[in-house]
C-alpha cells in the first residue's frame, strides 16, 4: 500500500496539472473574501456588520469554493490514466485493483486537502490584515471560525474524491467534467430554490457542504453543522465505493 501511495503521489507531482487549477481556486477564494468585506456596510443589503460572527463565518467559508476546482482535479487525475493508458502498468504491477483505487482515493483526497489549505491561507492573508485595519476584532475560536475553516478543508478534500468516482464512472474526461459542473452549477442550485424539492437540497453533496461551512445562503433549512459533515463524508465514501466497484468489475482499457 505504501508503494502504491508513493507511485500515485509521483503521478501527481511529475506532470504539470496543478498550477493553473490551483491559481484558479485561490483566486475564487480571494474573490469571495474581498467581495464580502468590500461590500459590507452597503446600505440596503441587510448583511450584518463585519463585527457580527455570522458575517465573519461567511467570510471564513470562502475557501470552500475551491471544491469546484477540486472536483475537477479529482476527475482529471483518474481520467488522464484512462486516456493515456497509464493505469495499465499500474494494474499489471498490482492486480489487486481495490488496493490501487484505495491508494488513488487517498492521494486524490490529499491533493484536494492541499488545494483547501492553499485557499484557507489566501483567505486568511486577506482577511486578517484587512479587518484589523478596519479595527474589527475577530475572535477566531469563540466565533466558530476555526470550525468553519476546518470544515472548508474537509469539503474541498471530499469533493476531490467525488471527482474520482465520477471520473471512473465516465472514463471520458470531458464528459465527466461537464457532467459534474452541470450538476454543481445548474442542478443543485435549481433544487435549492424550487419549492417542495428544495426540502431535499440539504441532503445533496452541496447541501451537506453548505451545512458544514454555512457558505450558501439558501431559501431552505440546512442540516446542523456536524450532521452536514457526516453526510458529506458519506457522499465521499459513496463515490469512492462507486470508483472501487466499477474498477474491480470492469475491464481495464
Amino acid at each position, binding site marked *: 500500500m505504501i508503494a502504491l501511495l508513493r*507511485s500515485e503521489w509521483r*503521478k501527481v507531482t511529475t506532470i504539470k496539472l496543478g498550477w493553473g487549477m490551483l491559481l484558479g481556486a485561490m483566486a475564487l477564494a480571494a474573490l469571495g473574501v474581498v467581495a464580502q468585506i468590500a461590500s459590507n456596510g452597503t446600505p440596503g443589503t441587510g448583511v450584518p456588520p463585519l463585527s457580527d460572527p455570522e458575517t465573519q463565518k461567511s467570510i471564513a467559508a470562502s475557501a470552500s469554493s475551491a471544491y469546484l476546482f477540486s472536483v475537477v482535479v479529482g476527475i482529471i487525475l483518474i481520467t488522464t490514466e484512462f486516456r493515456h493508458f497509464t493505469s*495499465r502498468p499500474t494494474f499489471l*504491477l498490482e492486480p489487486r485493483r481495490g488496493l490501487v483505487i484505495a491508494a488513488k482515493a487517498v492521494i486524490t483526497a490529499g491533493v484536494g486537502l492541499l488545494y483547501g489549505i492553499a485557499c484557507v491561507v489566501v483567505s486568511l492573508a486577506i482577511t486578517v490584515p484587512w479587518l484589523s485595519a478596519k479595527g474589527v476584532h475577530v475572535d477566531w475560536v469563540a466565533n466558530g471560525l476555526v470550525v468553519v475553516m476546518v470544515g472548508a478543508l474537509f469539503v474541498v478534500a471530499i469533493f476531490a474524491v467525488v471527482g474520482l468516482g465520477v471520473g471512473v464512472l465516465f472514463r471520458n474526461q470531458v464528459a465527466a467534467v461537464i457532467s459534474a459542473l452541470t450538476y454543481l452549477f445548474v442542478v443543485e442550485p435549481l433544487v435549492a430554490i424550487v419549492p417542495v424539492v428544495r426540502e431535499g437540497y440539504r441532503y445533496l453533496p452541496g447541501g451537506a457542504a453548505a451545512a458544514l461551512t454555512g457558505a450558501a445562503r439558501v431559501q431552505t433549512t440546512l442540516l446542523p453543522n456536524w450532521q452536514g459533515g457526516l453526510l458529506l463524508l458519506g457522499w465521499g465514501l459513496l463515490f469512492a465505493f462507486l470508483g472501487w466497484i466499477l474498477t474491480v468489475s470492469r475491464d481495464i482499457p
Partner: protein
Amino acid sequence: MSTDSAAVEGRIVASGLTKVFGQIKAVDGLSFTVEPGSVTGFLGPNGAGKTTTLRMILGLAAATSGTGTISGVTYAQLPHPGRTVGAVLEATSFHPGRSARNHLRVFCAAAGLPDKRADEVLEWVGLTQAATYSVRGFSLGMRQRLALATALLGNPRVLLLDEPANGLDPEGIAWLRGLLRHFADVDGRTVLVSSHVLSEVEQTVDRVVIIAKGRLIYEGRLADLEGASAGVVVRSPTLDQLRAALAPLHVTITSRLDGSVAVVGATPEAIGRAAWEARVELHELRAGSSSLEETFLRLTADPTGTLEASA
C-alpha cells in the same frame, strides 16, 4: 493437458480463451502454449484478437470463458506479478507530459524497486540521452523502447510484447531481435511477441501461434508451417467435381487469384490419382512454392483453412 505440465515455471497456457464484446466474438475458444527459453510469435492480421488475448492473460480483461495462466496460475494469483511478467500493450501507456525517467520512477515506486533501476533500463534500451525529455516529443520507435524499458523494470522471466516492432526502423528491429534472442537463449526467459506482419518477426521467432478472427489457425514451428502449407496448385475446368473427388482426402482447398486452387494436406500424386479415378479433367498439377508471407496472408484471410502442425 495435465495440471502438472501446465505448472512449468514461465510457461504461458491459454485454454479455450473466449472474449465477447457485445455482438463481436473477438477471441473464440483459443488454446495455445508458450514455452520458456523460446521466442514465440503471436501472429494475425489487425483485429484478429491478439491484444484482447494478451489483455485476458494479463488479467486486464475478464475472459468470457476459458483461462489464461502463467507458471500454472492466473495473473492475479502470481505472488510477484511485476517481477514475474513484463508486458507491453499496443497503445503505449505514457502521460505525454511526463519525462521518460519520471515515467519509469512512477512504476519503480509501485513495484517497490529502487529509483536507480529506472536509469538501468533506460540504458538497456538506449534512451539514456532522452531520460529527462517529455514523452510528448518521442518518436514511435522511442516510445516502443520506453515501453520495453517499463516491461523490463522488474527483471521479469516472462515477457509479453504486443507489436513491439511497430514503428521501429530496420536497425531498431535488428536490435530488438538481438535483445529477444538473448532473453530466450541466454536467460531462458519466455518471450511472446505479437505482430500483424510476419516478416517483422520471421527471423526472430522459434515458434508461431497464428490466429485469425479470434481462432487458432496454426501453432508450431515456423519451419513446419513452410513445409506444411505450400500446398499443391491444381487447375481444373470443373472445380466442383474436383472438390467432391478430393473430399475423402480431408484436404483444405483455397482459391487462387488466377482461377486455380491450392490444395493443402495431400501430395500431388494422391491428388492426381483421386482426380483420375473420379474422371475429373486437370489442366495443371504442381507442388506450390508460396513464400512464408504468402502462406501467412492466405491462412489468415481464410480462417477455415486450419492446419495442424506436423511436428
